[in-house]
């Protein structure tokens, strides 16, 4: 998956209307709450990425959500 498709998937998973930028701070994203974390965990699980709730607490920016997808992302 290309990075911009993954950003779109993140946006959809969190039920956002606004586009996501990699540098955005998660704490400024209103939709990034406990419910979004459940949806994100389900999304990563389907990609075969094992994340636990604790992992989300350390994240600061959208680019770190992107980095979690690891090998699922291809070069542009």
């Amino acid at each position: 998956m290309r990075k911009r498709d993954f950003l779109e998937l993140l946006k959809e998973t969190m039920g956002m209307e606004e586009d996501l930028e990699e540098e955005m701070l998660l704490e400024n994203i209103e939709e990034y709450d406990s419910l979004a974390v459940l949806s994100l965990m389900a999304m990563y699980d389907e990609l075969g990425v094992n994340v636990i709730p604790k992992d989300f607490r350390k994240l600061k920016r959208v680019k770190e959500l992107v980095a979690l997808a690891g090998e699922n992302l291809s070069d542009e």
Partner: protein
Amino acid sequence: MAKVCFDRAQISAIATTVGDRKLSIDDEKEKFGFDDNSLRRLKKTIGLNSRYVVSEGVCTSDLCYQSAIDIFRRLGIDKKDVEALLFVTQSPDYRAPSTAIIMQERLGLSVDTLAYDINLGCSGFVYGLFTAFSFIQSGLKKVLLLVGDVASSLTGKSDKTLAPLMGDAGSAILIDRVENQKSYFVMHSDGSGYQHLIIPGGACRRPYLRPLLTEDRDIEDISLRSDMDMYMNGGEIFNFSIKVVPKLFQELFEFAGVTEKEIDYFVLHQPNKYILQNISKRLALGEEKIPSKTASVFGNQNSASIPGTINGFLYENFSNLKLKNIFAGFGIGLSWGACYVETNTIYTPQVKTFDRRYYNWSGS
């Protein structure tokens, strides 16, 4: 590994009683402090809608009593034939003794009855059924299994992370001895996750009430909750559920030698619509085979959620058809288990709400 096959036990009846007060999430919006946007998302994603809870003072045993009396009357059971009474609950009448023993007298069973409680929640129906089937395999002829919780009394009243999910229900299940009826059970436990779903206070490790204000980053709100109330780390429990349940089904398919196509119903514990949708997606099961509405109508019924789903939504087919079923429970402990059980036109009335006439207990 705890994998067991039985060939002597069958379920003859399942009845469920729920609390008499129906609460709608729209009416509870202010109590929990939900704004319009979060309420809309909770309804859409988690499936919050309504739940049935008891009136003050009604216990799980009262709900189970009504369910058991229904079965005894309808099937004309001679009470002296019941040899064992099991009560699976986390909301007993007292910390001690076992409520099952009190229920022996209340239900008018013989003093020759074996009776005790089993402390389990979401996985409790499967474990209770396993224990009942074990008794039958060991030679007993008739076992009464009671399961359920008044889960609304286990949570902080204003804890919006947990209270809006919980419903109250008590079921009774009658198990009889027959010739040659195979069933298969697979069970697991993982104590490393005990702190993710817990009532920490009130027992020996933390015996006294110590009110505390908990800020939980996972849940992103502040809820007033005491040590005597249930705490849940929703993210951990969700993660656990979507990981272990699909694997559990694969184990059971292999052990029982059945395929997904042969199964009429997958009746799972019903924490909420979202978890069930995620599990059914991973198993690629059709919605008609894996009911997921129970929590949205009745609330999370803990150990009564599997019988609650049968009496709530599947009672006609369970009453009229021969069915191949998989039941699976998963949650607090952490504990999980599944079984393959066939049923043949058993007594399964539609779920009833609690009738105060059954609250005739003269105990303290």
